[in-house]
Structures are given as C-alpha cells and as structure tokens.
C-alpha cells in the first residue's frame, strides 16, 4: 500500500513536471512564432505597423496622431530604420518569409524597379483601392510603381526635385555673389561653371572650409538630372557608356581632383558635424534634404543657408507606400496608405519637412512653414521646387540602381577623393565592384 501511494505521488509529480516542461516549451516556441506587436490588442484596437527609412516626415507632420483621432479603432506604430541600405534587405526578407511584415511599407525610388519586377505579387494593388485616382499623381511616379500587367503596388509620397543649397555667409567671405538669382544664372546649364565658381571659392576660402561636402554629392546631383541612367528600356545595363553616368562622373572627378571637397561621406556622423561646424559652402539639395540641413545645422545656421536653382534640374530620391499582402489588416492598411499619400496630407508634410509631394494638385496650395522659410533666408521654396519638379526628366530606372550607384559613389568616387587614386583607377574599381554586385 505504502509503496503504491509512493509510486502514485511520484508519478503525479512527474506528470506535473511533464506538463510544466510541455507548457514551457510551447510557450517559448509560441513566443518565437507569434508576433507580439501586430494584431488586435486587448482593447479591440487594431495596431498598424508602418515601416519607414530615414525621415519621411509622416510622423513629424503629425499625420499618425490625426489619423488615430479620426479612426478611434486604429493605433499606428512607425518602425523606422535610419538608412535605406539597412531597411531594404529587411523589407525583402519580410516579404519573402511573409512573417513580421509591416502593414504599410515605404519603398525608396532606387529600389522601386526591383520591387515592382520581383515582388509585385506580394503587394496589394493600390491602383484599384477606394479613393485612389491615377490623375492625382505625377505620371512618371505612378508608372514607376506599376507592374507590366498594370498593378500599382505603391503610391507616391515625395519626389526629390533638386536645388543647390549654399551658405550665404561663406560665399560672402570668399567674395562670391550671394544672390540666388544671380548664382543660378552664373552656373545655369553647365556643371563646369559650377566647378569654376568652386575654384574661385577655394582661392579665398574661409579657413577650414571647402566648396562642397563631398564629391559623391556632386555625382548624385548631376546624375539626378540624367535621362540616360544605368539601364536602358529593355533592362540591359548600360552604365559603362551611359551619357548621364559619364557627365556625373566627370563633374565629381573635377571636384575631387580640384581639392574642393570637405571629403565627408554623406549620412555619416562626421557629415552631420560638418553641417554644424560650417565646413562646406554648398550641398546638393533635394527637397527632402532641406529638413535635414535645418536639423543638423541647428539654430546657428538660421538665415545663413539659401537655395538656388542648380545647373541642371533633376530628381534625387523619393518614396512610395505599399501594402504587403502578407499583412494582417490589409483593408485598414490600404485605407491608411491611401490617406497618407493623398495631396492634402503630403502638403502637410511639405509644410513641416519640405519633402515635395508627388501629387501636382497640391502644388498650388503648398506652403512651407515660416520657420523653414526663414531658415533658408526667405528663399521661395515652393516656387523653386515646383519649377524644378516640372523639368524632371523622365528616366529609366533599373533593377539594381541602388547598388550600382553605391558602388560608384562609395568605391569609385571615394578612392579618387580620399585615397588619392587616379580617376581611371577609381572607375576601374567601381566597374569591378558593379560586376560583383550583379553576380557576373
């Protein structure tokens, strides 16, 4: 008798142990597989995750708060990754696995072709969503996010009409004209004139300053105005002979070889410091950069920065919003994406952040915030960017645009600018890198 109760109690204890182990194991596994962020919370609210990179300005302009107020059942959570080169691989993995995808995902313009061509099936067709009209958006912006069979996987947020920002105070000290109209006229149409002005600047440059922040910035800006980029219409790589690439490369080489650059790498912490310490006099200025300059230069820069039309007009950067099909709340996410990329909301982002909308109907009513205007010495920001936006060339984007561009600026240009190699050596290194990127 005694032995049997002993046995039973042992067994029951063991059963408890099994149960505990099983519970532990399942709960641990569950913790791994279940997505603790998304889904409906206990209070019946739906949480929508918005994946973004850098500063898109949606949050800064208070759009999420506004949407939450008018939609009491929705809660919005923004998952920001500072740099697109870290954000994009993550977006791809999420799309591939279908796990952990954001309900709404931003896509950068240099990746849009790859996303359209390889991930088209994994996105909702926003072209057919309620309240979306193709005519609201710039044609080329709409086409960039549309697959061959007519599915529109992303709605345009901002575009990157590109001006030149310059420091009035430094220009003055170097004995250059400071009037934006005059400057624009002086270098209009030709980057060589811009470089020539740079030479003049360097002759009398205030101590410790250079004409531009980096040669890569010049490359990117000249390239932004190119009609011929890295790919032709059939999707073949033409980066070696592309006129746009050659022009941009040559301009960048002149700046790098002429010792006109502060040799900073864009988006590095030291570049940010360069803004704060007034290390350079000009910087390529796509609309989204205006907010960045304001933030990094800080209050001391108020009224010192100004902006003028660049030698050539172009588009650098810009973003789209898409709705991954693997998301849990596709209906609500679509509504949010449509609302966020509507002209009225994009105008609010412009007011706050100067990111330029991809919806022309908003242009008439655009107003930058008084603070931003004052920061740029009362430059006519709206008119300037709207004018440039009209001249943006229609350009063909390719599948590996982002990676090819990075190989050229971060390998080729940098070798010449910072390692003192010849332009030929730099270009050779960039070419080799591109071949590696393309897997050739």
């Amino acid at each position, binding site marked *: *008798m*005694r*032995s*049997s109760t002993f*046995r039973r109690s042992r*067994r029951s204890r*063991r059963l408890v*142990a*099994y149960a505990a*182990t099983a519970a*532990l*194991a399942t709960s*641990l*596994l569950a913790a791994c597989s279940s997505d603790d962020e998304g889904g409906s919370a206990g209070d019946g609210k739906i949480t929508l995750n918005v994946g973004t990179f850098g500063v898109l300005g949606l949050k800064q302009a208070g759009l999420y708060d506004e949407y939450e107020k008018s939609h009491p059942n929705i809660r919005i959570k923004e998952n920001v990754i500072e*740099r697109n*080169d870290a954000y994009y*691989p993550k977006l*791809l*993995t999420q799309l*591939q*696995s279908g796990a952990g995808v954001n309900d709404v995902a931003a896509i950068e313009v240099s990746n849009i072709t*790859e996303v359209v061509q*390889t*991930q088209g099936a994994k996105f909702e067709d926003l072209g057919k969503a309620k309240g979306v009209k193709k005519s609201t958006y710039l044609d080329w912006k709409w086409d960039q996010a549309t697959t061959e069979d007519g599915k529109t996987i992303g709605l345009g947020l901002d575009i990157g009409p590109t001006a030149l920002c310059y420091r009035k105070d430094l220009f003055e000290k170097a004995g250059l004209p400071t009037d934006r109209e005059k400057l624009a006229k002086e270098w209009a149409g030709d980057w060589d004139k811009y470089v020539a002005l740079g030479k003049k600047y360097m002759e009398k440059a205030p101590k410790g300053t250079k004409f531009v922040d980096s040669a890569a910035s010049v490359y990117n800006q000249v390239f932004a105005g190119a009609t011929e980029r890295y790919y032709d219409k059939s999707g073949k790589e033409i980066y070696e002979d592309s006129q746009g690439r050659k022009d941009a490369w040559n301009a960048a080489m002149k700046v790098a070889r002429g010792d006109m650059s*502060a*040799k*900073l*790498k*864009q*988006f*590095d*912490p*030291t570049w940010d*410091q*360069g803004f704060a*310490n007034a*290390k350079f006099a000009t910087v390529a200025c796509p609309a989204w950069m205006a907010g960045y300059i304001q933030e990094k230069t800080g209050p001391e820069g108020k009224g010192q920065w100004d902006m003028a039309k660049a030698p050539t007009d172009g588009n650098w950067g810009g973003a789209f919003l898409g709705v991954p099909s693997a998301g849990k709340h596709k209906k609500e996410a679509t509504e949010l994406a449509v609302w966020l990329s509507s002209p009225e909301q994009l105008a609010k982002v412009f007011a706050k952040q100067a990111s330029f909308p991809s919806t022309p109907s908003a242009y008439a009513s655009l107003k930058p915030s008084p603070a931003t205007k004052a920061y740029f010495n009362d430059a006519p920001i709206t008119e300037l960017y709207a004018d440039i936006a009209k001249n943006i060339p229609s350009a063909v984007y390719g599948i590996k645009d982002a*990676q090819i561009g*990075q190989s050229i600026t*971060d*390998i080729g240009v*940098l*070798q010449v600018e*910072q*390692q003192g190699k010849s332009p030929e050596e730099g270009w050779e*290194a960039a070419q080799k*890198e591109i071949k*590696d*990127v393309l*897997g050739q």
Partner: protein
Amino acid sequence: MSDTAEYAETAPPGKGDAAPAATGGKASRTPSPWRSRLYRWDIKASPYVFVAPFFLFFGAFGLFPLLYTGWASLHRLELTNLDDSTWLGLDNYTNLLQSEYFWNALGNTFTIGVISTVPQLAVALGIAHLLNYKLRGSMLWRVAMLAPYATSVASASLVFTLLFAWDGGMVNWLIGSVGFDPVNWRESSWGSQFAVSSIVIWRWTGYNALIYLAAMQAVPHDLYESAALDGASRWQQFRHVTIPMLRPTILFTVVVSTIGATQLFGEPLLFGGTAGSKGGADHQFQTLGLYLYDQGWINGHLGRASAVAWLMLVILLLIAAVNMLIARRLRKDR
C-alpha cells in the same frame, strides 16, 4: 538511472512486504502488465522529454540553418526570390576562391584578428596581475574593467568612429598637436585596420582580464611565498609562477578570441558608416563577416553568401584542429 530502473522492475512483486504479497498479490497485480509497461516507458522516455527543449531549439536555430545554408550554397539563390533556386554544384565555391574580394577579406580578417587579439590578451594579463595585488577599492576596479564589455558594439563603434574622424577627430587632433600630419584613418589600409582593432581591444580587454584574474586567484598562495623566499622579484614571480599556472586559461582565451576575431562584424560595419559593408573604398577593412553580409544582404546573392558562411566554418574547424595540436604539445612538454 540504474537505481530507479531496478526499482521499477522489481517493485511490482512487492519485495520486502511478503505478507500482503502472499494474500493480496493477485489483486495488486491485475493492472500491472499495462501499468508496468507504461511505467517502464515513462522511465525511459522522461529523460528525453526533459532534454528535448534543448534539442528542439538546437534543431530549429542551429542544425536547420546549418543544413539550409549548406543547401543554399550549392544553388543560385537570390534574396528577391527564395522560391526559385537553380542547382549550381560547387560553382559558388569556385567563384569565391577565384574572387579577389574573398581573399582580401580573409587576409583582413587575419591581420585585424592578430593586431587585436595579441595586444588585447597581453594587456589583459598585465591588468589581471595588477588587480591580483591587494588594492584599495579592488571591486571598483573590477567593475570598471567590465564596463567596456557591457557597452553595446554600436555605441562603442560610433564613439570610436568620431574619435578617428579624419577631420576634427580627437586622435588626429592629438597627433597634430605633436606635429604630425593628420591620418585618414578610415581610408588608409593600416590606419583603418588599426582603428577597428582598437575598438575590439577596448571592448574585450577587461573581459579577458577578469577571466585571468579568476584563474590567478586559484593559484596557491604558498607558491608565491616560496618564490619570494627564494628571492624572486615580482616580475620573476609573474613569469615563473603565474604564467605557467595560467596556461590552460590562456589557451582558452586564445581560442575564444580567435573565434571572435574570425566572426568580426559589428565594429567594422559601423566604423565604415554608410555602405559600411564594403569595408572602405578599397575594401581595406572588409572582414569575412562583412563580405558575407555584403554578398547576401546588399547584393542579394544568398547562395554565394551561404558559401562564404561554410568556408568560414571550415576555417574555424582548421583553427580548432591546429589549436588542439598545440594544446597537446604543451601538455606533453610539462
């Protein structure tokens, strides 16, 4: 185990309580075939159930990725389309072995590994020796030693990136005040490797020092006393008592540091800033870890990246084998 197993087998007959066994033996036996079988199964299986979680996790997060990576390394597999793979055989490997970027990364990993591990362990040994003396506030010193290790890679690397900035960085300011020209730390080949290893050294020296300290405190005190009686100076004590007694510990830290150096990733990535995975304009500090990341996640060639991962495993196994040989040698010598 054998104890309980015996108990299970012999328990049902009621060994030891003969009286009830004789009368009620049948009654208590009726359910026994089924129950004892269950019981035996229970005893055999329960240990496996208890260790199962480990194996489940190992299978999910260790074995499966390993095998999948091996499979992927034999295919053309792109990040943009994981459902579509074409068989390549060993092409990924032969391509890698012909790629100068791979050899460059391997070389960098080796040089950065050496110039970070050797000074790191030497300094750690010295610090541990100092901490081993009676010190005022020794606890404070020990905590201070561990502080860099507790700092995240990201913040440490960011601070060092700023220190080594070529224009306006503190290091260049210092060497400038002594009269030297500023060095472009990131874009020069030795400068960048030195900068990266300095981050590693800063983070790991204290950690290793504490391991050495723990081992030193296990060295019997009489050894030092008798050495002192024999007239050995502190340096001689360190050389002839401490180091020999610490040999296994040193070997252990060498192995751990070597593995860490082979997988070096976060520090150079963040030191590189934008496009950090390239490891500088000339790939001058691109380690194998960075090369893997660049291939897989920036260029999107997961098959090639998997091949890099497997080659790294092979290299680690080779290092382990060499290490074992040396360890055996050392043991024989004693």
